[in-house]
């Protein structure tokens, strides 16, 4: 058979074309490395759609450029551990204290004035991280099937047989684990275990995480779900007031309405420590806290900001008095969940 000259030409042309593209890529990537001072880098486990405007505000106020590496909290923690001392990160902004705890050997102690701007329960006892906004554990319920009056005072009562087949939860979710860890502290092992056994006996529907649990409550696939509070407000913003679910903050003082935080830590090896502290202070300032309250439906952690009027005041939530830094025995909680058959 003859050799198809046209085809060879096409290959040659594509090769040339792509080499040109590659050269272009070199030019682009080398152009960015020309500045002499190290750029200020934030690793953010909080998503871009939540905090990009806040970062832009900080850039505008300070005139400093911020480079943000977005990812999931756990993946970024693992990335930081792999990078070790060579990490380009200056600040790690995590969705939960668990992620910060995993890298606490890479974090440096925060100054007292930063720590003092939040309540004691909302920062690390070792001063390695500080909470930036609060998120409450709630019971989300379907409004077509239930009213708030139908719901029991304590989360403990959902273990009663009358709730069989009506509950949804995400047993792999980190915030749920934190709540159960708090239960073990407040109630002790035996009481927590019998609560879990009661819930498992009620055959809860299992979801991968909070979002699908809230969606299922809205659709009426389940009557109640144990979730974090802010997802509901996202659904209402997208779907409108007609979304058929609302949050219930348990009336009794128990871990059912535990308030958790997202938090931030300063990397020990950072060459931009001053800017990093400025960034953390900005998050805790009036404008930072107001942003979380108004835009992400979270609880501000100090009096600098007005709480969102869609949310109860943080002071009115019947949260147990627990230091988040004490909720460290997550492995014990996972073992317990496994023993009662809630986790594989």
């Amino acid at each position, binding site marked *: 058979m003859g050799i198809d000259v046209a085809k060879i030409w096409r290959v040659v042309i594509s090769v040339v074309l792509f080499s040109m593209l590659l050269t272009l890529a070199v030019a682009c990537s080398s152009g960015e490395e020309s500045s002499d001072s190290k750029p200020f880098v934030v690793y953010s486990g909080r998503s871009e759609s939540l905090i990009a405007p806040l970062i832009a505000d900080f850039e505008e106020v300070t005139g400093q450029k911020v480079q943000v590496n977005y990812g999931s909290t756990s993946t970024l923690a693992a990335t930081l551990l792999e990078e070790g001392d060579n990490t380009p990160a200056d600040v790690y902004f995590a969705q939960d204290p668990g992620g910060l705890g995993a890298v606490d050997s890479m974090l440096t102690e925060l100054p007292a004035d930063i720590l003092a701007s939040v309540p004691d329960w909302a920062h690390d006892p070792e001063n390695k991280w500080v909470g930036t906004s609060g998120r409450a554990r709630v019971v989300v319920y379907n409004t077509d099937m239930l009213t708030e009056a139908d719901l029991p005072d304590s989360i403990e009562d959902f273990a009663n047989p009358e709730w069989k087949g009506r509950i949804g939860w995400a047993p792999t979710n980190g915030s749920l684990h934190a709540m159960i860890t708090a239960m073990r502290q407040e109630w002790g092992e035996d009481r927590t275990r019998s609560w879990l056994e009661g819930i498992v006996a009620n055959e809860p529907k299992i979801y991968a995480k909070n979002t699908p649990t809230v969606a299922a409550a809205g*659709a009426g*696939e389940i009557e109640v779900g144990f979730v974090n509070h802010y997802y509901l407000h996202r659904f209402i913003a997208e779907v409108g007031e007609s979304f058929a679910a609302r949050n219930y903050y348990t009336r009794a003082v128990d871990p059912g309405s535990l308030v958790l935080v997202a938090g931030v830590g300063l990397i020990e090896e950072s060459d931009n420590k001053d800017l990093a502290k400025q960034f953390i202070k900005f998050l805790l300032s009036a404008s930072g806290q107001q942003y979380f309250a108004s835009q992400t439906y979270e609880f501000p952690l100090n009096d600098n900001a007005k709480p969102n009027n869609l949310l109860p005041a943080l002071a009115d939530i019947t949260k147990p008095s627990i230091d988040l830094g004490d909720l460290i025995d997550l492995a014990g909680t996972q073992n317990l969940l496994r023993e009662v058959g809630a986790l594989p």
Partner: protein
Amino acid sequence: MTFSGVISTGWRSTDGKRPPTFLVASSAIVALAALIPVGYLLIRSIGAGSDWFDIVFRANTAAVFGRTFMLILLVTIISIMVAVPVAWLTVKSNIPLRRVLSVASVLPLVMPSFVMATTVIEMYSPKGVLQGWLSGLGVNRLPDIYGLGGATFVLVLMTYPYVLLTVRGALRRMDPALEEAARAMGYGPMHTFRAVTLPMLRPAITGGSLLVALYTLSDFGGVTLLRYQTFTSTIMIQYQSSIDRTLAAVLSLVLVVIAVLLLLGEGFTRGSGAYHRSTVGAVRTGRRFDLGNWRWAGAAAVSVPVLIGLIIPVGVLVHWLVRGLLNDQQLLPLLIPARNSLYVSLLAAFVTVMAALPVAILAVRFRSRMSRFFERSVYIGFGLPGVVVALSLVFFGINVARPLYQSIWLLLFAYAVLFLPASVGALRSSLLQVNPRVEEAAQGLGRSQWGVIFSVTVPLVMPGALAGGAMVFLLTMKELPATLILSPIGYRTLSSSIWSAASEAFFAKTAGAALLLVLVAGVPTAYLTLRGHGDKVGDSDRLMKIDEVAR
């Protein structure tokens, strides 16, 4: 020409030849790169405490293995059953809207797993959209889709295009003389397909299925949302809640073992038959069969996976978008992410196909234990969760390739490591269809080995290169873990935008970015899919009447 003649004419004639050094060297480098994740896992496993033993051999581990294999088996079989007829109908028949359906049937591949799973749940869950439509008929609740059924459903939608693309490549290159001969001997269309076409497609089908099986092994987003526990979901959940790298590494090594078992399994199904033309003469384009009135049924059949895998998910996304816009939701700025996605995915496709070329040529033309090892080793990364591969490249970047860390080069390298198997598989099945005598002739006429490869082999395996390139392109467009971890800081792509919005329940933003992803992916896919043989304008008159031939 008889059938036995075709089958026995060997490509083994090249065996025993010494492969050129540059081919061996480049293949070795590619294989070494592909084995970085395994090396990383071994390093990370050193110093593992004894608790890993308890976790690997926890009471229900056997059940998790059982469930994982069950899912892989079901997804693979159903994907083949969907993809092979769709491939035949879109390449070999005259169904209406053939070109549109050709492109659309590949596009479900570009849907990120968590987006596909979320749209499926929204549609078919007990109180989903479908239930709403059926409520007039008195349906108050649909049966649970969660579990094996739902997970299989979602994974088939996302993975049948692997088989579809490789089989299409093979169908285009197949010598039409074989089918014609069968028809001339009085075989009916079905009989011809079973006795001639199907056996010739074997390397393409097994190659594509291997990708399906390995992807199913590695998937996390789809199976967790559909609440089906596999080995990967177990590892990832363990990992997310404890961030224990050593434990994750030990558990991931178990996945490597499973991947190796799958590779060995596929190896057994490989025959040593010949799949290329044995005769001389110009390459003829296979003619398409005129299905008569059955062509409408054919189009309807191809439309089923397109409807379920593309149109319905896109419909759900449009619904999210419109609903959010009516409630004043903002969209993300998408121009730069779209440009970045397109640019990096095209580059990744090119780089990956180039890297796959020496491995495939060595494996097909110079069969030896070594070439086989090189070829197989590129597959292992595909069976690992993307996060594990990405972290292994963080390790590699920080400790070995420091200047490249968080540059576009390491990102491209990561895509190549991840998606080499897609292009190696497609090139291999294409290369099997090229008679080595052609290359020998060129060499006999005085061309160097280099010259032969570039002037003869490469042009002849273009269909495979295009199919493989299309797959790598689509996979890169939706790739998430490596994109998030290894991109230059501040480098946004469509997939990272989708993830950023979806992880915090921003439905309108998710939908906007995901719809753009499908749209942007559609154009190059159309080019790569339609650019084969038999799709030039004016060839529609070359149809073969089934009745005439069968008579």
